[in-house]
């Protein structure tokens, strides 16, 4: 409509003016929208940078040797560390891995090698659901099956919750990687007279071992940072404890407890804990990325 506002001398000129005016609007809309997309991209990255800067600044400056070597001191005293928490996290994640990884890999093998039938489809559906269940609900489940009968919080319960979180992840990764192995590889093995289980274990699985390892490491990185399912399973412990049927401290839960506490000293420790956790998780992520990049 605004086009008619353009002064026009004669017909061809009017047409040209009209086009250029519309193009003018389109050009600016184009520029505006491209700028908007750029702004959105920056807005998506900005929080990451902020989290990074604070974790490194606050955490890095609060980190010292006693963080790793000492247990917490009573409130009001300075010093102390999170020895109990990082030992607890390592213990519980190891326990969860010992159960969750083989379980997940075996289920993944079933899906890729025998998973065409009804059971395979049901299993695929079940792992999909398990992946989407909020982790706090898995904590409720571990509470019901382990904490209730034993009548106390324990490292076992925490490890069980983390293992349940790991299984569907490892299953899907294993299935996807084994499916990448071309069928003629299996057929070659069978043609040589190898029994099928040897073909699967020694040829198919072994050939994808590197890829599965990266998937497993990502699963470990994920559960190492989990807090919600540990709150009422492993609970927490102010002392260094290695007995698996007792409550055990973990890094994420201790960061949570310290963060919501009113003590300045504890906040400092929480940042140091976050620093350690972020470094650990990022190292695992970067490492898997490097491996995957090299394989390509």
């Amino acid at each position, binding site marked *: 409509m605004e086009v008619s506002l353009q002064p026009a001398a004669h017909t061809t000129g009017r047409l040209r003016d009209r086009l250029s005016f519309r193009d003018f609007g*389109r050009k600016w809309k184009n520029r505006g929208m491209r700028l908007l997309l*750029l702004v959105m*991209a920056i*807005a998506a990255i900005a929080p990451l940078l902020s989290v990074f800067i604070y974790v490194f600044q606050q955490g890095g400056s609060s980190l010292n040797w006693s963080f790793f070597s000492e247990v917490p001191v009573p409130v009001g005293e300075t010093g102390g560390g999170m020895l109990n928490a990082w030992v607890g996290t390592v213990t519980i994640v190891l326990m969860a891995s010992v159960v969750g990884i083989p379980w997940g890999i075996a289920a993944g093998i079933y899906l890729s090698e025998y998973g065409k039938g009804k059971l395979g489809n049901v299993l695929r559906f*079940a792992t999909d659901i398990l992946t*989407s269940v909020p982790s706090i609900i898995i904590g409720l*489940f571990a509470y019901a099956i382990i904490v209730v009968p034993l009548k106390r919080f324990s490292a076992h319960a925490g490890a069980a919750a983390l293992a349940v979180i790991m299984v569907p992840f490892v299953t899907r990764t294993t299935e996807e990687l084994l499916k990448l192995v071309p069928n003629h590889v*299996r057929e070659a093995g069978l043609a040589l007279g190898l029994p099928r289980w040897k073909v699967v274990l020694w040829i198919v699985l072994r050939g994808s071992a590197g890829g599965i390892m990266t998937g497993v490491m990502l699963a470990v*990185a994920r559960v190492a940072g989990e807090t919600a399912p540990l709150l009422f399973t492993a609970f927490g412990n102010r002392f260094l404890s290695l007995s698996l049927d007792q409550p055990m401290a973990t890094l994420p839960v201790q960061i949570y407890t310290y963060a919501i506490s009113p003590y300045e000293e504890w906040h400092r420790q929480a940042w140091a804990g*976050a620093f350690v956790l972020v470094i650990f998780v990022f190292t695992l992520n970067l490492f898997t990325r490097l491996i995957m990049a090299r394989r390509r």
Partner: protein
Amino acid sequence: MSKAVALEVSQTVEAGPVKKRDLHLGDRVFFWILRGVATSVILLLAALTLYLFRLSIPAFQTFGAKFLISLEWNPVSEVFGAGPFIYGTVVSSLLALCISVPVSLGVSLFLNELAPKKLADTMGFLVEMLAAIPSVVYGLWGIFVLAPWLRTTVQPLLGKTFGFIPLFQGPPFGVGMLAAGLVLAIMITPTISAICKEVFRAIPDHQREASLALGATRWEMIHMSVIQTARSGILGAVILGLGRAMGETMAVTMVIGNRAEIDISLFAPAQTMASVIANEYAEASSQIHLSSLAAVGLSLFVVSLLINAMARFVVHRVDSRSAKAAH
């Protein structure tokens, strides 16, 4: 196509002249072990559902179906209703979506359509790293960086400018619904943008070339050939993001202020279904309190199932349609 052929070949190998008797004993053992493992994972899910039901039976017996709509949650007088938490979960997740969807779309379009490859790779990597940060670290950052910033800068400004809208009234606490929505938005952005990027990548280049050849500007091309084509894929991504936002626990628990009341203002503290469980379960002493929390968990479980089923339905429909189009 080649895959189908390969499958047929392998089936003939299985179903060929080899009789069951000829099979290795090891093969049968191996098969049954794997079958057992497969069944056990399915049983795991069944047990999870069953135990969740069993934990929450007392609450539903005491309060009935009204549990889901009752607005009172009082551990002292032992009256429980999930209303405030359902409200908190819905509002915080929707708020997160309102913030995250434009940003996720923007970043995935920018990386896929506009940015030079090197920049796109670096930024894509950074966005993925957002997803790797543990929830509790976001919570820590939320308490000590985001909430003070909201209290001193953002909320007074919003109150002054949009104070006539009830959403932005009330004293600026920092922690509360707005903080929870923001942290959730940050946490679901990698999820949504990763799926959107996949969807955009699946669009063949000739579609883009067609609109560019007709004289479209870059933005018109993105609008016509990319966004329009990917609409249902984007919808699937958004629903999956919603599912993630509803189940997210720790970061929300740390910044939402934890108060079991419904307040229309976004500045006010609130509580979500996940956060009330995290906050009270370890300390709950009475049986009915524990059971009510488990009932909240069961409701969350059912909702997250429905959301994920919906997302899968949408994505699946897109898949089958594009498969049809390809043939």
